[in-house]
């Protein structure tokens, strides 16, 4: 569960990103670093990076946060969602680094289409709380699929193999989970 203090913390992070974007505010960056760097590193370690790799890639992610702060829009994503996407993309980039010099996170393939998001009025804090609620409402078997995908770097094919489930079962569970997550972004009734 996310605690009640979460929204205020999210607002502070949003303000720090804005301060980095507008004023190149290093103190704000240091606060973002304090919150996110240990989390990004933990995420990368979880996906199998060694200490050195995780540290280097975390530095790369945080530098990207500094550079791309002007592109951040709190209406589109919470700070943690935005930084997760950066970390995910930088990791993909690193895995094929010798082929790809860099991956531009402003590539349209990597940014949400503002108009395609049905509800732009939700602030980041409400987004996060709705998501937490939606995740907890997922049936255990669907939540397990997402956990394996995000926390253990398993593709849906890997999940089917390791759990000895038919591929079709894994696909349908993931589709149900995504359908559930979609509903939380529907406008309020």
């Amino acid at each position: 569960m996310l605690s009640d203090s979460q929204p205020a913390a999210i607002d502070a992070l949003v303000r720090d990103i804005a301060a980095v974007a507008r004023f190149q505010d290093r103190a704000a960056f240091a606060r973002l670093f304090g919150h996110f760097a240990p989390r990004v590193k933990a995420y990368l370690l979880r996906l199998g990076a060694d200490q050195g790799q995780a540290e280097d890639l975390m530095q790369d992610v945080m530098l990207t946060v500094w550079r791309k702060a002007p592109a951040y829009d709190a209406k589109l994503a919470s700070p943690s969602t935005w930084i997760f996407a950066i970390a995910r993309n930088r990791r993909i980039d690193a895995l094929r680094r010798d082929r790809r010099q860099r991956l531009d996170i402003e590539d349209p393939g990597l940014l949400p289409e503002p108009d395609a998001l049905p509800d732009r009025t939700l602030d980041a804090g409400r987004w996060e709380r709705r998501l937490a609620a939606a995740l907890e409402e997922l049936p255990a078997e669907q939540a397990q699929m997402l956990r394996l995908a995000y926390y253990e770097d398993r593709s849906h094919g890997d999940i089917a193999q390791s759990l000895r489930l038919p591929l079709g079962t894994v696909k349908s569970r993931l589709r149900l989970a995504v359908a559930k997550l979609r509903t939380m972004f529907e406008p309020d009734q």
Partner: protein
Amino acid sequence: MMNLPRPIADEWLVDFAAGSAPEPVAVLVESHLSMCPDGRATVARLDAVGGALLERIEPAALSTGALERALAALDTPQPAAPRARVGAIGSPIPAALLPYTGPDFGALAWKPVVKGVDEVILPTRGPATHRMSLLRVAGGRAIPAHTHYGDELLLVLEGAFEDGRGHYARGDVCAADETVSHSPRADRAHDCVCLAVTTGPIRLTGGWSRLLNPLLRLARR
């Protein structure tokens, strides 16, 4: 005329969003997303799952001086962003694919597979079970009927094709697995170029290429 592609199935978007997609799948999905706003919207939602993960994860200890190193790096100059390129018949090549193909499909070392069908294998560091290639099917020609071991994803880059189950234009993905037998046929008007990714255990030697391999050897003779 712009095609507004239908998004690839959710399980592939989850693989991409979670970062668990092997290299060839990530390249195909990212290329697809660059042409598919609806798919991008779903990935944006799935990114929130990753955001929740970051908020809940047990933070890791950083090396000493990590913040100082980060602050010192802030002033390093930013590399220039890549420019959009244009493909052989004027269709932009997705940025994710460009490093694998270069800017001109026509300059690639195409190998004939069967009459009217050429292929270029694009090496990746994905699992040995995965295979990525560009397929070029001449207008009106078809890939011989085949079934699959594991998954086959065909992303249309130029032209269009139909396979009896649907019609696929630029940005669309045709997904098939072992339950599907099909014979994709290019529309008459244009050659059709697709990015193909096949997955599956190596013991099954992956996808329709297995059936075409004997023909490929014949064609090269």
